[in-house]
């Protein structure tokens, strides 16, 4: 067995994980600063320049906090739940191409960890496995609030997965592939070549985004942890690093969802204009920068929406999922299929 590809993969996994970790830490700071600005406050601004070192202070505090294990809880599952949430959220990112094929030290490196034929399905599969972390947490805690949170999470995520998957199928039809690198390659050139525009997938994009918010349990769909009704929902009984892992898992899931939306609909790492005679690291840097900027915008949108919109009621949530998003996604699929069949879109 050749050792070099394996080594390259390990390095890629290591770097991506580290970047994501730093991104998550940064996002917890952004979340609080932006929410503060939206509410005419200042937010954390004392630790380090502009409060940028606040996440590190938080990390230290989380580690030093007491670990509690509620009486009557199922201990193994209680311990395992944050791990499941964390790992599944992290794994889904593996198929996202965050840059083109580059050459480093004379070696050709494809800037995606797992270039899989059914790559988009891989991401959806891990997004759907993420619910087990929440359900296990809810059940293992042996607390009414946590159990209700787990119940809500399972129903909500199964419902919105449908709309999410169906919306994405439109893109698969347009590009004729499920491999993320090929989907991105098909959207090169000007920004009107992106699937959201030239593929007529603007509706699909909006559906995907809305369902993605529900899938990551972010406001306005954060019913599994609705404070006003359920204390903190599925992680009511969690403290210390275990709680922190749930928090990080949520941010990982947000990043994955943003990256998937960007990859599917907005050209992935394509900057949106012909790059002309740029080559080498100037081009690759521009493309990686474009990817980071796009994902960054969607991360900001997550925060923006959270502090702007109020939470849905539970029946409204189910209504929206089954009676609005699901039929719309089906209609989008049928229309896209017809457009592809009659060669309006090049499939």
């Amino acid at each position, binding site marked *: 067995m050749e050792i070099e590809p394996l080594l390259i993969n390990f390095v890629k996994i290591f770097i991506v994980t580290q970047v994501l970790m730093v991104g998550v830490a940064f996002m917890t700071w952004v979340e609080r600063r932006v929410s503060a600005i939206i509410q005419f406050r200042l937010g954390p601004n004392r630790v380090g320049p502009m409060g940028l070192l606040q996440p590190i202070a938080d990390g230290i505090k989380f580690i030093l906090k007491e670990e509690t294990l509620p009486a009557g809880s199922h201990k193994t*599952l209680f311990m395992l739940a944050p791990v499941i949430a964390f790992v599944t959220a992290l794994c889904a990112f593996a198929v996202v191409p965050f840059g083109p094929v580059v050459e480093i030290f004379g070696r050709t490196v494809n800037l995606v960890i797992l270039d*899989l*034929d059914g790559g988009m399905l891989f991401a*959806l599969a891990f997004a759907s496995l993420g*619910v087990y972390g929440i359900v296990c947490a809810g059940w293992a805690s042996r607390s009414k609030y946590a*159990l209700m949170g787990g119940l809500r999470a*399972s129903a909500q*995520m199964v419902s919105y997965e449908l709309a999410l998957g169906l919306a994405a199928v439109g893109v698969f039809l347009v590009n004729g592939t499920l491999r993320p690198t090929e989907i991105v390659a098909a959207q090169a050139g000007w920004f009107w070549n992106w699937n959201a525009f030239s593929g007529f997938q603007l509706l699909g994009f909006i559906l995907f985004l809305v369902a993605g918010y529900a899938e990551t349990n972010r406001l306005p769909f954060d019913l599994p942890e609705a404070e006003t009704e359920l204390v903190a929902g599925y992680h009511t009984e969690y403290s210390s690093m275990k709680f922190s892992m749930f928090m990080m898992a949520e941010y990982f899931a947000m990043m994955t969802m943003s990256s998937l939306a960007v990859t599917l609909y907005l050209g992935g790492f394509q900057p949106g204009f012909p790059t002309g005679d740029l080559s080498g690291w100037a081009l690759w840097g521009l493309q990686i920068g474009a990817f980071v900027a796009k994902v960054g915008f969607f991360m900001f949108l997550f925060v923006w929406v959270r502090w702007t919109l109020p939470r849905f009621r539970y029946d409204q949530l189910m209504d929206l999922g089954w009676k609005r998003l699901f039929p719309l996604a089906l209609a989008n699929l049928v229309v896209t299929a017809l457009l592809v069949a009659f060669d309006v879109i090049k499939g």
Partner: protein
Amino acid sequence: MIGLETVGFVFLATLALASATVVVFHKSPIISALALAFNLVAIAGFYLLLNAQFLALLQVIVYAGAIMVLILFVIMLLSIQSEGGLHRSGRIHSVLAPLIALGCAVALGVAVFRGSADGRFAVSSADFGTVRSIGTDLFTTFFYAFEAISLLLIVAMIGAVLLAKRRL
């Protein structure tokens, strides 16, 4: 020298058998359901070993990601009132169920051993597990069977809605 594939197979087989045992023998229905989900993911691992990526991913999305979550949902709803009260089964069940399972296992085993003995299981091409090849197979070779199954699913769905409506 044992190949990586053999190591993977033994590892997955152990996981699958262990989780299946937990499904059958554990008292708490929730743990059983979780073990079943784990078992389904392990089986997806077998598909991956056989190069059938698409099948493996669908197995995880459909069975582990959707169906098992629904089953968990129902069990959690029911066992708010009565924990562990779901495991009562009649005498006929406890005799018939193992017998039928054993019968299926024997039938499958015989088919596999015979098939591999007379070389009926030809080695497939490397890309037989991709989305494209499975899609092509489904919509050409197995078209009628595929459509018949979708009809069956619709019948089941209408039946479920009717049964639920009666109680609403």
